[in-house]
């Protein structure tokens, strides 16, 4: 394994250069009293610039990105991230803007955000947008806080949020952070919400329902219109977890399905890079009845065409993050939507759905298909049949690494045992899809022939299977320096 940057450190080496001090060189002791000063420097690495570059270049070669190859990680929408988006986000006139510079000196940035808000509202089929949330989960929390404000304004204080058992883990966690109680409802035999369970769960204490549609099984909930009606009938609101929007762009809009609040994951649907775990952006769009509660500031366009931030929103929930949002991420989302246009977005979703169905057709004979329906942009199969060889979904995933394909999401959603959740996305060509299918088929062949090849996989990675139990039992969460002892 690679040395750490701290292990590469040697006293006195340096990469940095700073401008000379062109003001009086007052001593630190004159500038700061002893009690405020730092007495031992942080043990940051001491390396030359070339050592620094080589270290991180070496680390990068251990990773796998969308640019490396197919990445059919279900629910994550690992589509290609166009390079032009990086170029435009790096334009000085967008990159080097201070959030507190006068609005008159940031009109282009405000116009971009204002326009993007409207585009997202059109795609969602709803009225008003905030770009503030930093991620999908953050959008969920924001949406739930909007629900709370909405009910309070009506003199109501319901306590519960209904969530199907297929939901992302962020949904119940967001519910608790927003001060609500999560009420889980089961799925029916076709993978949608069980309507009887839903009816039993709904009463005046329900603030709303959170739903992903298509859901995490990759299935469109056929009862969506009835679901929306029954939730609205008890005074609740519908929250759309936009993680799977890539299936339905320009084909079916959450607002038309009856949802009141929608978040988008720009890093899924609108091609902004995932960055190894972030930054993303989780803008949310709401029905007009919720617009007054959106976080401040709201961007407004004056009659003379100038843009400004409006903080004077007495019903606003406040702010869910510092400043205005992950602007540089939003620039990329703007560029993506602008490049594709409405028709391009629709074509992208159509290709995403076709690609998922194509991969499913190529491997369905190998696995259990828990819900035998037409899938949307992703699908879930169960690797239970591999148990006859003593092989688990996890083992299959690790073997796929040896075949040069990023494995699917495993063990999610929780209601499917040995789940493999596969989302090829629209940016993979038929050749790549065939490669994914061939890799999965080869790995299953290996399981029948020589199961140990899987249970001990991967064999071609820089490290073999890692001891995660040991890591959690005796956490080592930072570099141990020799002088610290062990």
């Amino acid at each position, binding site marked *: *394994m690679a040395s*750490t940057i701290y292990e590469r450190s040697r006293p006195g080496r340096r990469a*940095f250069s*700073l*401008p000379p001090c*062109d003001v009086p060189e007052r001593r630190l002791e004159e*500038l700061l009293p002893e*009690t405020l000063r*730092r007495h031992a420097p*942080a043990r940051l690495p001491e390396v030359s610039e070339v050592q*620094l570059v080589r270290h991180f270049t070496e*680390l*990068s*070669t251990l990773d796998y*990105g*969308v640019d490396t190859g197919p990445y059919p990680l279900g629910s994550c929408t690992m589509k290609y991230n166009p390079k032009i988006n*990086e170029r*435009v986000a790096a334009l*000085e006139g*967008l990159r080097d*803007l201070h*959030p*507190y510079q006068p609005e008159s*000196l940031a*009109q282009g940035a405000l116009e971009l955000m204002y326009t993007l808000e409207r*585009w997202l509202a059109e795609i969602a089929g709803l009225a008003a947008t905030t770009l503030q949330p*930093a991620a999908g989960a*953050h959008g*969920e929390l924001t949406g739930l806080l909007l629900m709370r404000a909405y009910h309070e304004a009506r003199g109501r204080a319901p306590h519960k949020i209904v969530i199907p058992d297929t939901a*992302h883990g962020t949904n119940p966690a967001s519910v608790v*952070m927003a001060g609500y109680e999560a009420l889980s409802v089961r799925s029916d035999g076709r993978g949608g919400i069980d309507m009887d369970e839903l009816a039993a769960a709904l009463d005046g204490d329900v603030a709303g329902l959170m739903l992903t549609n298509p859901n995490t099984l990759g299935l469109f909930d056929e009862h*969506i*219109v009835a679901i929306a009606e029954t939730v609205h009938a008890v005074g609740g609101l519908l929250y759309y977890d936009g993680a799977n929007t890539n299936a339905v762009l*320009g*084909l*079916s809009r959450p607002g038309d*399905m009856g949802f009141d609040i929608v978040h988008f994951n720009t890093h899924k649907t609108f091609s902004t890079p*995932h*960055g190894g775990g*972030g*930054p993303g952006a989780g803008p949310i769009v709401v029905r007009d009845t919720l617009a007054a509660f959106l976080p401040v500031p709201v961007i407004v366009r004056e009659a003379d065409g100038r843009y400004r931030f409006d903080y004077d929103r007495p019903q606003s929930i406040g702010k869910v993050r*510092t400043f205005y949002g992950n*602007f*540089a*991420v939003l*620039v990329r989302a703007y*560029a993506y939507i602008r490049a594709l246009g*409405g028709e391009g*977005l629709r074509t992208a979703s159509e290709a995403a759905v*076709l690609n998922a*169905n194509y991969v499913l057709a190529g491997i369905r004979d190998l696995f259990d298909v828990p819900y035998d329906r037409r899938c949307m942009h992703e699908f879930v199969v169960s690797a239970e049949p591999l148990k006859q060889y003593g092989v688990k979904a996890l083992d299959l995933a690790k073997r796929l*690494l040896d075949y040069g394909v990023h494995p699917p999401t495993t063990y*999610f959603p929780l209601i499917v045992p040995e789940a493999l959740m596969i989302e090829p996305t629209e940016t993979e060509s038929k050749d790549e899809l065939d490669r994914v299918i061939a890799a999965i088929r080869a790995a299953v062949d290996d399981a029948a022939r020589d199961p140990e090849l899987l249970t001990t996989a*991967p064999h071609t990675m820089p*490290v*073999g299977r*890692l001891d995660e139990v040991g890591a959690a039992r005796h956490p*080592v*969460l930072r*570099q141990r320096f020799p002088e610290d002892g062990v």
Partner: protein
Amino acid sequence: MLAVVGVGSQEELYAEIPETVRLRAPLDLPAGISESELFAELRRLAGANSPAGAMVSFLGAGAYDHYVPAVVDAITGRSEFATAYTPYQPERSQGVLQSIFEYQTAICELTGLPVANASMYDAGTALAEAVMIAVTQTGRKRVLVSRGVHPEYRQVLATETAGLALEIAEAACDDGVTAAALRAADTAAVVLQQPNFFGGLEDMATAARAAHDAGALFIAVVDPIALGILAPPGDYGADIAVGDGQALGNPLNFGGPYLGFMAVGEALVRRLPGRLVGETVDVEGRRGFVLTLQTREQHIRREKATSNICSNHALNALAALVYLSWLGKQGLPELGLLCARKADYLRARLLEIPGVAPYTAGPIVREFALRLPRPAAGIISALAERGYLAGVDAGRFYAGLDDVLVLAVTERRTRAEMDAFAGALADELATPGADRG
């Protein structure tokens, strides 16, 4: 492909979407365009802004115009880092996992605390999460926050915890530092920022003692560049340190994406929100890195998780790590001292101007606040026309402080620029400008 799937048309793939919710009209969006047209359009939008490089900037207040060295772009631009997902397959993600481990180490070193998470969205959300830790840990619902903490961080704290029925009390910060008498009884946490919003330096050790005497946790909001010369939170007994890592190699980007950092004492490890990377070994005993202690997290614990966060700001954290490795052990204190000297110089120059008075009178490290003889908003507008981003009008956040200007000085500001700025401000104040205020 349709034939393989077993359908006759694309339309058939959507058979399960009820007709009533199908969109039959095209989306009302502009038609798609070519890459060159797209570049031209974004250039036009970019051209309608005045970036920091076109102005002489003294803006700070949570976002700082430090130089970003070329190595940062070179590393964060590598697509293996930029286009990867969260490292769920550790055997194929050792690069990002190791870099997060190295980042966690750097944050521990900066803060003097033993455990740091893999990063969060920004300082405001990190503060809200820190307060939630304290509320869970102490079982108390009251929080005492200094008014010297960035007003937007406090606003985020209030908004994000709106459903948790907390009582958020404020400690006065009237003369540029937090009032010494802290009413910490029955509080879950006491929160101070160092340096505070006005650039003032707080007596963190005394505040930490007051918190601990009352059985509360002490949360320090800190600046990573200033930590090159200021005592780290671990030294004065902070239980949790949070802050914004933007200043570490991340461009201003009109407010985001930045990164929030968080470090805690050992006692709070299992209450930490967010990703955490740990060292381990593989089946052959080779060192490797994995996401760890995941039983805190939403994908395992769902409604019992410590937080809903399911990402970090990994690429921003990588930028911070590369930047800190570029500066190294020597560079960070040198940079801190350089900024402190320049800020000290500019404050002295500006205080020579008739009518200008100190708001933060004590020691400063990069940022400071002044009282002007006229409202700051008008001065800021007038100086913008002369090519200066003069600072932040404290009055936009604090009633009664319309005449207070908050300025930051990074290493990028030269003496010549500061002298010229002092001249421009003197000039402006010498002109009868009541109409502008």
